[in-house]
């Protein structure tokens, strides 16, 4: 049975996560999240959406009221499996009396990395994160960016299969962000699964394979970047001539006039063709039809707007029966 669960395709498979804090504050209201092995997954959401609670439940820092599912094929909360997971919390604080090298050694030992392996690994990670020259300097003297690099190194000290990062680029300069991005891509290439919780939508868009948008304790949207942005595609039709006289008929065909152009939301080509027919029938010359791919930020804002107006629904489990 254990072998079967180990072989599940999901590195993270969370089902029906619920958490209510004292004061009847519902942080999570039945969240389902799945992350495939070897992919970079982004968890998005506005402040108070429940992102950090979800991550903390995964890392056994917070107790869920209801939690099913697995991490790396083992039930949620399995302590032994934590040895295969690396974690960088948001706003982390490391003991100021330690040096960078001591911190990696300490946290490596806590993650059950044998002494000889962790020394070698610590040296490699310090090198990889550009911290070698600061290895023997006390953490009290580190800048925020250096703390973040060290935090990333400590999350990788046990050569984890699953890496959970909460705002990994927080406080890091542009060069540092690029370094971290490259590191994440390299880790994915090596078969690692990466779970990122971040507000930096642009950063996530550059590296994530799949994302979930969490709003008010529920998954509002979940899927690959392609799926999410495709669902929100917009066509822009540029014409020679006046569109205003046709405004009502354009609206009937679900189009709208934006900056003198015709915009059609969605990915339904039939609607576009119907509008083109209308334009041509009225003697307007079509200059171009450009499909506009929405950014992750557009999707995020669109989701928040939609959820606030109609209320979020629990995401359906991918591959599930429900």
């Amino acid at each position: 049975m254990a072998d079967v669960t180990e072989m599940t395709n999901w590195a993270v498979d969370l089902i029906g996560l619920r958490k209510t804090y004292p004061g009847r504050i519902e942080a999570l209201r039945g969240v389902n999240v799945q992350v495939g092995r070897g992919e970079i997954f982004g968890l998005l959401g506005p402040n108070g959406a429940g992102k950090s609670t979800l991550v903390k439940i995964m890392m056994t820092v917070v107790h869920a009221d209801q939690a099913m599912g697995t991490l790396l094929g083992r039930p949620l909360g399995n302590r032994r499996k934590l040895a295969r997971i690396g974690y960088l919390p948001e706003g982390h604080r490391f003991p100021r009396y330690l040096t960078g090298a001591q911190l990696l050694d300490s946290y490596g030992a806590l993650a059950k990395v044998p002494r000889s392996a962790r020394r070698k690994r610590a040296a490699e990670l310090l090198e990889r994160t550009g911290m070698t020259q600061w290895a023997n300097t006390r953490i009290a003297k580190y800048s925020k960016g250096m703390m973040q690099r060290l935090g990333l190194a400590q999350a990788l000290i046990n050569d984890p299969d699953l890496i959970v990062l909460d705002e990994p680029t927080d406080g890091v300069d542009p060069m540092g962000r690029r370094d971290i991005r490259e590191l994440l891509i390299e880790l994915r290439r090596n078969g690692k699964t990466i779970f990122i919780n971040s507000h930096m939508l642009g950063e996530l868009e550059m590296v994530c394979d799949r994302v979930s948008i969490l709003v008010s304790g529920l998954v509002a949207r979940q899927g690959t970047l392609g799926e999410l942005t495709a669902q929100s595609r917009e066509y822009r039709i540029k014409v020679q001539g006046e569109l205003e006289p046709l405004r009502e008929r354009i609206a009937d065909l679900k189009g709208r006039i934006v900056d003198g152009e015709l915009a059609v939301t969605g990915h339904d080509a039939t609607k576009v063709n119907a509008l083109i027919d209308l334009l041509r029938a009225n003697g307007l010359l079509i200059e171009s039809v450009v499909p506009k791919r929405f950014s992750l930020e557009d999707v995020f804002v669109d989701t928040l707007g939609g959820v606030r107006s109609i209320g979020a629904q629990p995401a359906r489990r991918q591959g599930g029966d429900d």
Partner: protein
Amino acid sequence: MQAWTIIVDSFREARDKKLFWVLLALSTVIALALACVGFDQNGWSLFFGLLKIESPVYRAGTPQAQQMLASIVSNVLVAMYIGWFGVIVCLLGTAGFFPTMLEGGAIEVVLSKPMSRLELFLAKYAGSLLFVLVQAAWFVGLTFLIIRIQLGVWLWPYLLAIPLLVALFSYLYCVCVLAAVWSRSALTALLVTMVFWFLVYSAGKIEEVYAMLEYNRAREAGIVEVDLSWEHRNALGKTAYVLNAVLPRTSDIPVILGHEIQAMSADELVLQAFQLEGQLKPQDHFNIEQEKKRLARISPLRSIGSSLAFEAVILLIAWWRFARKDF
């Protein structure tokens, strides 16, 4: 390996505190002050021989000289300096250990490691006790050597002061940890511990006063033995009995140590001096006997056992809170 890492880390945290080094330095100075007391064939001296006091009794090689030094160590240095001042400094130094570990951003990383909360909790507790263990070992070790140099004897039972002082500290520190887990504030933890210590001290004093009153009454009646059992106690005595049965008995530690190293109590020492100088009245012989009986009524096993049981219960509550808490 994980527990050891937490313990080592706690020691590094201790080492980082100025108080740790200040107390070590102060202990060294005080131990050296003990070294300034010397004995020769004519008597004893202070300040490395600068001030000489001739005495046929307190001179090199006499058992009284050994008694005097052992009593100074037990009643003054251990009971007053380490037992009070040292414990306060150690509390100041370690009150922040748990709150620092429980700070947002710090605890998340530690809890995400493959280690149970129980193991983490106990390792941190043991690591915090290391602060006082090092201090006690340094001070007792130094004074142990000085006693050897001055008296020419190895006072082995005196080394018991190390575990006894750690035990004394731990009686109070468990409360500090409970308050820290509940409040996550070093200041609150420290204040609660001080109030608790005052309560424990008061309970000990009530018992002492009650016993003294009973002994005085017995003295007036010419009885050496005093029955302090539950059945023979009045309301005050029963209150003191219950409080002392439940709460840790911090004030017993110097008495237990004094008993182990056969040091006289301060009262006994004064009486012995009178006796040796031929000024002892018949009533004083009675008083010496009674003082011995009064101190002998403290059972080390019962005192330490009940105190450790209290500590275990408090730690269990603190761990329960820690294990269930969301961070």
